[in-house]
Structures are given as C-alpha cells and as structure tokens.
C-alpha cells in the first residue's frame, strides 16, 4: 500500500526543478525528476506516478509531444497532468492539442507560486 503519492516533475530548468522537488518532499510527496521530454515519457510509463508536472519547452521531446505519448498509453490516458509553462495559449494548434489531450490544468509559471501549485496537486489528489 502506497503511503506517499509519486509526482513526476518534467522540467529542464534546474533551479526551478530543485525548488519544486524540495517543496514536494516537504509536503510528503515522493518526487521523481526528469530533465527532458524523452526521460519524462519513459519515467511516466515505467513508474506510473500519481501525477505529472510537465513543462512545454523541454529538450529532446517537447511537452506537447510528451503529453500525446503519455495519453496514448492505457494508463497514461487517465493520469492527472499539470502543464506548467510560460507559453501562452495564443496558438490555435496548441489550444487544440491541449483541449484534445486534456491535462488537468494549464498553468502559467509567472502567475503561480510553487506553494499554490502544490496546493493544486493536493486538491487534485485529494490529499
């Protein structure tokens, strides 16, 4: 029986990734780090985290592609995903992809404090 919820953090910005991981640990989550989209997809499909925090602009495989790959998996189709990005949804194709693959949230980094993101995670996971 799992006592700690696992959160996969797909973020290439080291300082932000470390800050998120630290605060998740302090809030009794078990964070997993992925530095790029390819590693993120692999960890997601192998470790089956309870929730995925996904940046859009990441190396190797971009966030939208990673989102599509995860959603294509039977398990991944239902896993809660929060997109955490600074990319504004002003592109028709981006909006269409988001709506089609339905992450739980599309959050703009500059508008959200890390603590609020953690609160959102807790809300989604019912913790």
């Amino acid at each position, binding site marked *: 029986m799992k006592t700690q919820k696992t959160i996969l953090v797909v973020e290439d910005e080291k300082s932000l990734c470390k800050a998120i991981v630290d605060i998740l640990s302090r809030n009794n989550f078990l964070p997993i780090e992925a530095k790029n989209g390819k590693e993120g997809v692999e960890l997601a499909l192998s470790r089956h985290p309870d929730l995925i925090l996904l940046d859009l602009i990441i190396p190797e495989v971009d966030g939208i592609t990673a989102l599509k790959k995860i959603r294509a998996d039977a398990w991944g189709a239902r896993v809660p995903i929060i997109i955490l990005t*600074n990319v*504004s*949804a*002003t*592109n*028709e*194709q*981006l*909006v*269409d992809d*988001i*709506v089609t693959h*339905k*992450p*739980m*949230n*599309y*959050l*703009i980094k*500059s*508008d*959200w404090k890390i603590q609020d993101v953690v609160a959102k995670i807790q809300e989604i996971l019912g913790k």
Partner: protein
Amino acid sequence: MIKLSVCIFCLFIPLSYAQAGAILSLKNDVGVITIDNEMPVDSSHDILPIPVEATAPLGVLAEKLPLFDISSDQASNTPNGANRTTIRVAPGETLPISVKLSNFGGGKRVDVLVHYAIYNSSRDEIYSASETVAVETTVSLVKSATIPYGTYPGIHIAKTSITYQGQEFPAVTQFSFMVERKFFGIFQSDFFSYMFIVVIIGVFMFFLGNILVKHRREMRFIPLDYSNIPHNRRTFYEILSDTIMQMSRRVGDDAITIASKVSGLEIDATTGRILNLDGSPAKIIAELVSEYEKLFGKKVSFSFRKEIEPKGSS
C-alpha cells in the same frame, strides 16, 4: 431647587429687662416681671410701674425690616437645561443664571446688590459680576455668565449672593454644573459616545458589506453550465467561459467587453455566458487569450473541468 430663607424676627424688649435676664409675661392685663432664679412676685398688691412699650401689642412693636428669599437655577429655556443633573457648558459659552428674589419684609422697595460668581473645583473664582436691582415684592433675573476660554473641564459652582441695607444674615444660593469641551460642536463625552456608535456601525457595515460583496462575487463567478452543448464542443465552451470569468475577476467587466469583440464568439454581455461559437473553437480561444495578453498584459491559465462519469460506468 436650592432655597435659602432668611427670617428675621424683631421683638423689642426693654433693654434694661432683657439684659438682666428678666422674663416678661402678662397676667390679668398686669405685667409680671420675674427675675432669674427667683420666685414670681405677686404684684397685685405691690404693683411696679410698667413701661408703656411692654404693654403695647406685639404687632405694633415688630419693626418691618427687609427679609429676602433668594433662589437660583440655570435658565430652563437653554439648550442644556433640560435636565439639571446634566447641565453642561463649554468654555466660551454662556451659562444663563436665573435668580428669583422675594421680599417678605414688607412692601418697601429695597435696593439689592446681586453678586454672581462661578468657582471651579479648586474653589478658584473664574467669573464674577454684580448688579443692583430694586425689589419691592418679587424680581426675576437672568444673568448670562460667559465661561472663560481655557477653563478646565470639571464640576463648577454658580453662586449668587445678595447684599442689602439692614441685612443681618448672608443670603446665598448656588447650583453646580459641568464645564466640558466640545469637538465639532458636540460635547466631548457625547462625541466619544457617538464615535463609539459610529465605529460599531462602521465595523458592522464593513463586515456586512464584505459578506454581501463576497456572496455577490461567488454568485457571479459560479461556473456556468454547458451540459446542453454537444460533448465534442463542450470543453471549448467551458474553457472560454472560465477564461472570461477568470479575467473578469482580475480586470472587471472589461473582460466581457473584449470577449464580445472576438470574431466568432457570441456571448451574453451581462453574464458572459457563451451563446455560440462560429468557426474553429481553438482559434477563438487562442484569439481571446491573445487579446487579453495584449490589452491587460496578463497570461491566461486554464483548468479543465472534471468529466462527469456516466451512471453505471466503473
């Protein structure tokens, strides 16, 4: 009412008898004089000559000297005079002193010197005035005493005394009153009471207002229901509706105005409800987000609503 009466009875007794401690009485129309510590002497056989004054009627002997009754009060027609226990005057204001003089000593007109004084709680005189009035029977006076600026607040006494020819006893009357500062034309204690009430009402109104505003906001920002929209387009409606609502929270009704100008987007101008989407919904969302970002400099976050599981599904 403070009332002081001075009664003077004048009985003229021959000085020689009075000084000797004699007792004067009448017995069978004959004067009898007894001397202290001595038995009465039956004078029916050995009658002494009785002075004429001793046999005269008492009413004739009493000389009618002036006899005054004096009373004072604050004039009752003043704004502060409704209740004597709460007479209050501010420094610089006038205290109307009402004085009534009654002469019980006969019908002669007498000149009376009336002296007004006000004392503070340290018994220092802070106001003094005099006037002379002729009194035959009764006179009522009202004296306006101005309380000096700089008078310290506290209980003060307004004292009125009279002096007249032939006066044997002092005749004084007084009443107390309160000197209190005023703020904005209101007595200090009243001012603080009113301020307290205003603060209480203000705090109450503040909380009530907050509750009402919060309630109104919550009512206004309850996510609109689009369950009547086909499933394949419903998410676009919900994203658009929630985005407009989110921006309304941040920038007010301008968010609805801007949204109504986005081509292909038909909304209710009052509620912001999405009425119809004409064209690519993703394009409409992208254009709306772009407009908000351009005009308000704010990027837009989305939250997808939870799908309602059909009944019976696992």
